[in-house]
């Protein structure tokens, strides 16, 4: 009789033992899957929120008076745009910032209307990450105008508009935002530099901090040290509001995971091992008679390890489906993630299909060795 046929029949006979082992393993797999999917969803959510929030790091000329900067919203000093290129050459996976955009921001007057003119460079990201650009692309000879400018200058999409001596095409549908963007013209950096007569100059580099630390962990000190080592000519200002809340959420979840995941794994190992010990006790006479019939230790260990592996395989399949379903169904209402951020992870499911039988066999290893080392004569004498 094949060992698998033997195992299947034993499982069918001692259903309760097998069912409890299956439940223990399924619970462990479900928790692992749910925890991982939530972690991934949280990661996506944090990225999305951070991106929606916009840049949270502002690098301005070192000599800028912060009082003036906060009052006007930009620095009245300027720096060489080559500094942006210098910082961009340091973009790797090992730095704590990403998404660099150089900008030149100044007041300007068009037909008696005071506005802000902002020139934006292209976005620099860490190579090979495939990140989407966070800003909007401005095509050559075009501008994006705010709603108040559109109203006062009577301009709409595709109209031409003079800024200084240069003529541009309006590339957007101006929408009221209730922010200074309503009185802002966004142009390509080179165009703004030409209009303002500040060729080769910028007055800010915007970026995103990738540390995801809370304020009490002083991420700014880390960023200032890192950026200051590359660009000593700038001072670093950080906008911390929502990013702080997200970082806190993420850290809380990570702390919970640090406790919950190992606890579930240990509890599962103990549970499966205990059930395997009970199974070995139940089957002492069977082990004795198998020995008497000339079956070797390998065959006997195989009966227990094979059973554990088989239950592990079933638990991995059920647990992966259950964990994914639970997170999709209840995740958004129980955790601070949106349904859109939750995605099934087939790679994780496959990894668990391989790992869970090994894990279950590991949990049953000591009981299996007990079975192998059990003296059959002792059992067979207990008549």
């Amino acid at each position, binding site marked *: 009789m094949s060992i698998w046929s*033997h195992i299947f029949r*034993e499982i*069918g*006979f001692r259903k309760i033992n097998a069912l409890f082992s299956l439940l223990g393993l399924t619970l462990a797999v479900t928790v692992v899957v749910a925890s991982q999917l939530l972690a991934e969803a949280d990661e996506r959510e944090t990225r999305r929120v951070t991106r929606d929030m916009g840049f949270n790091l502002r690098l301005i000329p070192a000599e800028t008076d912060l009082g003036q900067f906060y009052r006007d919203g930009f620095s009245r000093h300027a720096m060489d745009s080559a500094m942006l290129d210098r910082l961009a050459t340091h973009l790797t996976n090992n730095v704590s910032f990403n998404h660099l955009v150089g900008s030149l921001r100044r007041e300007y007057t068009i037909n008696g209307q005071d506005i802000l003119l902002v020139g934006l460079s292209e976005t620099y990201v860490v190579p090979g990450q495939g990140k989407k650009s966070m800003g909007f692309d401005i095509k050559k000879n075009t501008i994006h105008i705010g709603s108040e400018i559109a109203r006062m200058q009577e301009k709409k999409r595709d109209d031409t508009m003079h800024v200084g001596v240069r003529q541009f095409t309006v590339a957007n549908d101006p929408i009221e935002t209730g922010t200074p963007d309503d009185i802002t013209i966004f142009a390509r950096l080179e165009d703004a530099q030409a209009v303002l007569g500040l060729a080769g100059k910028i007055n800010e580099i915007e970026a995103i901090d990738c540390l995801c630390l809370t304020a009490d962990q002083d991420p700014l000190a880390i960023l200032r040290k890192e950026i200051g080592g590359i660009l000593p000519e700038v001072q670093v200002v950080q906008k911390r509001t929502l990013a702080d809340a997200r970082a806190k959420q993420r850290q809380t979840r990570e702390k919970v995971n640090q406790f919950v995941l190992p606890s579930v794994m240990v509890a599962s190992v103990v549970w499966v091992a205990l059930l395997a010990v009970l199974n070995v006790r139940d089957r002492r*006479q*069977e082990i004795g*008679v198998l020995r008497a019939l*000339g079956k*070797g230790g390998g065959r006997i260990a195989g009966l227990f390890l094979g059973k554990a592996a088989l239950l592990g395989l079933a638990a991995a399949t059920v647990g992966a489906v259950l964990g994914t379903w639970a997170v999709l169904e209840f995740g958004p209402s129980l955790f601070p993630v949106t349904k859109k951020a939750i995605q099934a992870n087939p790679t994780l499911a496959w990894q668990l299909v391989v790992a869970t039988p090994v894990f279950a066999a590991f949990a049953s290893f000591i009981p299996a060795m007990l079975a192998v080392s059990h003296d059959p004569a002792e059992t*067979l004498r207990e008549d």
Partner: protein
Amino acid sequence: MIRCDEVTKKFRKNGSEVTSLDRFSAEVVEGEFVAVHGPSGSGKTTLLLTLGGMQRPSAGTVQFGGRNLYALSPADRARLRSSEIGFVFQMFHLVPYLDLLGNVLLAAPGKKLGQAQRQRAAALLDELGLAKRATHRPGELSAGERQRLAVARALLNRPKLILADEPTGNLDPENAAEVIRHLAEFHRAGGTVVLVTHGSAADTQADRILRLEQGRLLAN
């Protein structure tokens, strides 16, 4: 066929040493039917397990077919048991989740079953009056049927020796006689039987009776 020289087996039980077999020497020749009598605790089961290569003696040697049984590796002893020795126990020791055919085939060596083994198992069940219950489980059988099933399992590999430990101890006289009859048939076909019992059910079939008391051989 099987020879014991000065075989002693000692156990530790509740902190004290118990001698289960005490310098036991005897020889069973091929084709013999030997009954071993003795009261409970006289060492009968220990003797049987020692003869079957299941329990290493504390002292002395056991020779099976001229080979020192306990000089063989555990794997070689297991192979020898599988091919040349059949066991029948008082408590049957059947596997509860396998059907009758599965229990008989459990004795088959190797990982894959051949058609010949299946046919042999079916023929044995037929011979022992269990063919109609081949798909039943042991829990559905009477004590007599279970012991006949154990005999069928012991016979599957056409062993040279059957070691039977109180095979009639749990049976009524009719079923006991039926089991002894099957063992006697095996003996008549040239097989060797060593049967331990504290009763006399097999005495009429035995060629020789050994008496054990407190691990010692009293009469041969």
